[in-house]
């Protein structure tokens, strides 16, 4: 056994690869002595990773990039040798907002352009009638949830900073906040959308994968300095997480995975809800309508664990678009270098991009993403806080 490692996580389904790696003994089989530490906020995970209380962490991919760029906080270079999940978020709205949007809908209700345009009409009507702007919850300023919500509404002509209010809420507070009417909708990861539906206070409007076909969500984050000093430990962690991610995706092991995650020391919610999430079968409204998508959450399939620098570049482009970061070739380079496919490949003895992995981002609107021309890409979007 090596020195004890402490790994922080937030109780969400996309911590599955880490939790299963430890609980099923995959980390121990690699000679690692891992203690998982459940945390209550992303700020805590980030700070404890930064100062060395954690050796690694389940972290929002954009936070790993923000930390490496020194945005909003001290600059601590982070590397991500393993992607813990692609997608897995959903946009949920209150029954009242859902009804208002459906009344304005022109097109398919699962078409994000149609719903974004419907939202624009709802927003315009509210303004005309002097009603308070709509409020949407998301989990962190540097989060895919924030960027997915913004991307979606902006595509329909809704300015996320001017026409609505976006507020940060911890995931466990989302359901209560929509129930009490403090927010009208939210974008959050599993299992919270399903819990809002089960409680009858929300309708799932979109899967995150409707907005972006492949979006890096959480990464296994490690301090760059620590990673450079401990390459064997990093490789062993990647191998254990990879084995766990494959285990999580096997149909016959999913009931067991759901039971493990359901335990109070891990995610602590009903195993049935977790199983539905893993299977990509979500109840989207209280009448029991089920919507299925094999793309809802990708943990160990389709090359999801391979940390793709193009994903990092897309996230950085969103930071630029919404005024969180200034644009520079150097910053783009730093952002891309956070995702380390070389460490992944070295640990697993493989070489290069997954052949079956489709387009890196696949957004529903705008031109295809070009990681080498962020300025040109962003110029295609009318709404943004970006000054070229």
């Amino acid at each position, binding site marked *: 056994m090596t020195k004890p490692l402490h790994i922080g996580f937030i109780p969400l389904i996309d911590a599955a690869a880490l939790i299963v790696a430890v609980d099923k003994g995959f980390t121990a089989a690699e000679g690692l002595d891992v203690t998982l530490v459940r945390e*209550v906020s992303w700020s*805590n995970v980030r*700070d404890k990773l930064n100062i060395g209380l954690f050796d690694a962490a389940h972290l929002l991919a954009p936070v790993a990039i923000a930390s490496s760029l020194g945005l909003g906080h*001290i600059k601590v270079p982070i590397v991500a040798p393993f992607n813990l999940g692609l997608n897995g978020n959903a946009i949920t709205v209150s029954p009242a907002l859902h009804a208002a949007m459906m009344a304005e809908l022109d097109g398919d209700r699962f078409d994000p352009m149609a719903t974004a345009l419907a939202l624009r009409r709802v927003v315009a009507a509210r303004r005309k009638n002097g009603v308070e702007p709509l409020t949407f919850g998301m989990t962190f300023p540097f989060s895919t949830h924030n960027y997915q919500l913004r991307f979606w509404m902006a595509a329909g002509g809704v300015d996320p900073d001017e026409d609505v209010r976006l*507020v940060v*809420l*911890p995931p466990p507070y989302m359901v209560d906040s929509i129930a009490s009417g*403090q927010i009208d909708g939210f974008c959050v990861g599993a299992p919270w959308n399903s819990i809002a539906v089960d409680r009858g206070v929300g309708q799932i409007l979109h899967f995150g994968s409707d907005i972006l076909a492949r979006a890096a969500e959480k990464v296994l984050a490690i301090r760059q300095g620590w990673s450079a000093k401990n390459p064997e430990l990093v490789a062993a962690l990647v191998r254990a997480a990879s084995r766990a991610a494959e285990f999580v995706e096997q149909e016959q092991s999913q009931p067991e995975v759901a039971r493990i995650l359901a335990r109070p020391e891990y995610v602590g919610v009903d195993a049935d809800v977790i199983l539905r999430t893993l299977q990509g079968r979500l109840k989207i409204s209280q009448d029991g309508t089920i919507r299925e998508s094999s793309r809802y959450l990708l943990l160990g399939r389709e090359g999801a664990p391979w940390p793709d620098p193009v994903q990092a570049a897309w996230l950085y482009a969103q930071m630029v678009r919404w005024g969180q970061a200034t644009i520079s070739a150097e910053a783009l380079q730093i952002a891309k270098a956070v995702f380390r496919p070389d460490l992944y490949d070295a640990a697993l003895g493989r070489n290069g991009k997954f052949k079956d992995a489709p387009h890196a981002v696949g957004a529903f609107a705008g031109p295809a993403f070009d990681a080498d021309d962020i300025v040109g890409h962003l110029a295609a979007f009318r709404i943004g806080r970006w000054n070229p």
Partner: protein
Amino acid sequence: MGAESSPKIAIVDESPIRAAILEEGLREAGFTDVVRISEMQSLLSRIYALDPDVIVIDLENPSRDILEQMFQVSRAVRRPIAMFVDQSDAASIQASVDAGVSAYIVDGLKKERLKPILDLCISRFNAFSKLQDELDRAKSALEDRKVIERAKGILMKLKGLTEDEAYVLLRSTAMREKKKIGEIAQSILTASELLK
């Protein structure tokens, strides 16, 4: 806020005892404008209504992420805040994370004015955890005593011992097996349950 006046400090903490200890410490140190927030519902609007210069929050509080939003420039945020950190101040973060507290500074307040506030919060938080540990230890000592009393009773009954003899037997067994008397007593209770 004038340079002479005391900065307005908001304490965000769901533990009323700890918040009270913190407030008392701050007042003793001459910071007279202190408000406690223990209700996390609509935290952001409460903070806007108070308009504090400094926000102190415990790290067990999921609402910490809500405060991070206030770094951003957006319609929802009126006065930007920053966490009390800069590149040269890793020691402060380390000390505050260890203690379980974090402080945010609202735009306009000079950083050097926050340092004594943060230091005070760190020492009060540490004092509070020490208190909590002592309380926990006292509780478990009380539990031990109850278990020992019951184990003595069982030994007296089964082996016809006096109370003193029963205690000596427990103590010598504990010493021989290098265990705590409480643990030996607990195993006697367990065994007697099983053999009932």
